[in-house]
């Protein structure tokens, strides 16, 4: 930060009389604002749609609903704001509650499992040198980069064999052993200097002690990054529950929305708001960690 400030000061001094540089900055700001605006614009429809009453929605969406001539329009601000959809959702939709708590339960179980199982694995890769470490870690990286569909058949076979198919465990267990959070937490741990660990070992600290007293506190950024990324992924699970859960009562919330017909748009938008709020909350709290996690994947140590 200080470095960039110094440079910008020097730059200002050097650039006296040069208008070219100063002119380019507003343009950059303008273009970036435009991109940000375009990206966020469609999201505005979600809260506004949730607060519109059915009459208004039907009126502006008639062309889409009936396929009649003309085009749908949107009111950036609802004419007659109402919370009737939320009321219906919270009072009169038992299925919604069930699926909401399914989602919460699944996400909590997966994140807890990743901490209990994945965190020590990450520590083992970061703190110890053992035979086959490089190969094994390479395997972990490949596994984390593969799309789900590649693992669809393999996981189906093993879930059948273990009698887990069509139980919540079919979604939770493979996710618990996902190698992605291990990688992210590993990268967080590698920020710790090996010398510190060596010193602790020479002073007679046990491995468990080193892990708990040095690893956990110093590797926090990586742990937070892994948890944020995992949460966003778990809250958004679609293919796994679709493939491995048969009964609707076991589904997560992310599969509830696609079932709603577009004619109940207001209700669907209200559900969207409820789905969106926890994700945005985590995003707002953990944006730094999120950015850190992204750079872990795409940069060298």
């Amino acid at each position, binding site marked *: 930060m200080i*470095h*960039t400030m110094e*440079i910008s000061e020097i*730059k200002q001094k050097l650039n006296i009389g040069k208008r070219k540089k100063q002119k380019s*900055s507003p343009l950059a700001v303008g*273009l970036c*604002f435009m*991109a940000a605006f375009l*990206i966020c614009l469609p*999201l505005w429809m*979600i809260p506004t749609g949730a607060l519109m009453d059915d009459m208004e929605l039907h009126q502006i*969406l008639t*062309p*889409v609903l009936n396929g009649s001539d003309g085009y*749908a*329009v949107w009111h950036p601000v609802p004419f007659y704001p109402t919370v009737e959809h939320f009321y219906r959702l919270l009072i009169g939709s038992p299925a919604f509650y069930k699926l909401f708590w399914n989602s919460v339960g699944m996400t909590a179980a997966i994140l807890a499992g990743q901490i209990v*199982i994945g965190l*020590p694995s990450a520590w*083992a*890769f970061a703190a110890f*040198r*053992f035979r086959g470490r490089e190969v094994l870690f390479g*395997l972990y990286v*490949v*596994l984390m*980069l*593969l*799309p789900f*569909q*590649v*693992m*669809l*058949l*393999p*996981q189906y*076979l093993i879930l059948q064999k273990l009698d887990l198919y069509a139980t919540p465990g079919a979604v939770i*267990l493979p996710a618990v*052993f996902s190698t992605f959070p291990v990688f992210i937490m590993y990268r967080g741990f590698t920020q710790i200097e*090996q*010398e510190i660990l*060596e010193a602790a070992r020479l002073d007679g600290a046990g491995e468990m002690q080193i892990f708990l007293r040095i690893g956990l506190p110093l590797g926090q950024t990586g742990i937070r990054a892994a948890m944020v990324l995992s949460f966003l992924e778990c*809250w*958004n699970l*679609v293919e796994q529950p679709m493939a491995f859960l048969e009964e609707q009562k076991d589904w997560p919330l992310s599969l*509830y*929305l*696609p079932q709603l017909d577009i004619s109940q748009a207001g209700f669907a*938008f209200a559900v*969207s708001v409820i789905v*969106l709020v926890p*994700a945005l909350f985590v*995003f707002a709290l953990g*944006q730094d960690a*999120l*950015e850190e996690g*992204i*750079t872990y994947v795409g*940069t*060298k*140590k």
Partner: protein
Amino acid sequence: MKCRNNPNGIHRNRGKRHGRNSIAENRRLLFLLPGLTGVMIFYLLPFLEVVRRSFVKAGNNSFVGLDNYKAVLHNAAFRLAVRNTALYIVLGVPLLMGISLVLALLLRRITARRKLLSALLLPMAVPAAVMVLVLQLLVDKHGLLNGVISELLSRTAGMSAFYGIDYLNSDGALAVVLCSFLWKNTGYMVILWLAGLSALPRDVEEAAEVDGANRWQRWQYITMPELSGSFFTIGMLSVLHIFKSYREVWMVAGSYPQENIYFLQHLLQNWYLKLEFDQMAVLTVLLSGILLIVCLFLQKHLEQGKEA
């Protein structure tokens, strides 16, 4: 990297001499064991089983060599899916890389970029199901996008007879998929470009500017060579993200979409539902083979960068 390993190397040798330390050594592996067991059970072993199945006949388990592979390679749906997936990659990767690079270069000129970056990253937090609802209203034949286009056309060109494009059921389907892919992933790649650019010594650039190098020269001789490593990494990650973007495609267009957006994942998913496991095994092996090559290139590249 080598010298970093050294202290541990010494330690390990010492461990072999003293019994107490070799117990410690075993205890260390207890950290890894639970996780590794799970990875073996849920990922590696079933995957190897699928590799085996790709060479045998589904019913009686007899070895049939490459027969399953031949069947898949001659399958019309497979060829269509390969063509579409390849086209999606060829269009999507350069677009994503280009747009995110431009945004990253622009963002670098802005000091207060936190808020902007948040806005670009926001789509990462939006669950696919939520976005699909919005997307449907936008790209419907009578949807908001066509409404805006027809409004613009009638105002500027005086054209009033604009027939709305049915994007998801026409050749425009790929454009919709591309836009949703870009929407979701641009912020992610901007972060990576910014990380690559932050390694670039700013003083060099400043010095060149003072020496009178114009913007193009600075880009050509300073920025671009420095970013060449990032180009590769971000390109490979973009390819992998294309494959991960299937979720949105499936949710917005279903299992049997317009034929331009019928991808390899649709095929896998549909074979799964039809229980055609031997074909699925072959496709799993082929697809993971290709992606494995991408991953290995990526890893090798990052390893090399580490030593430099």
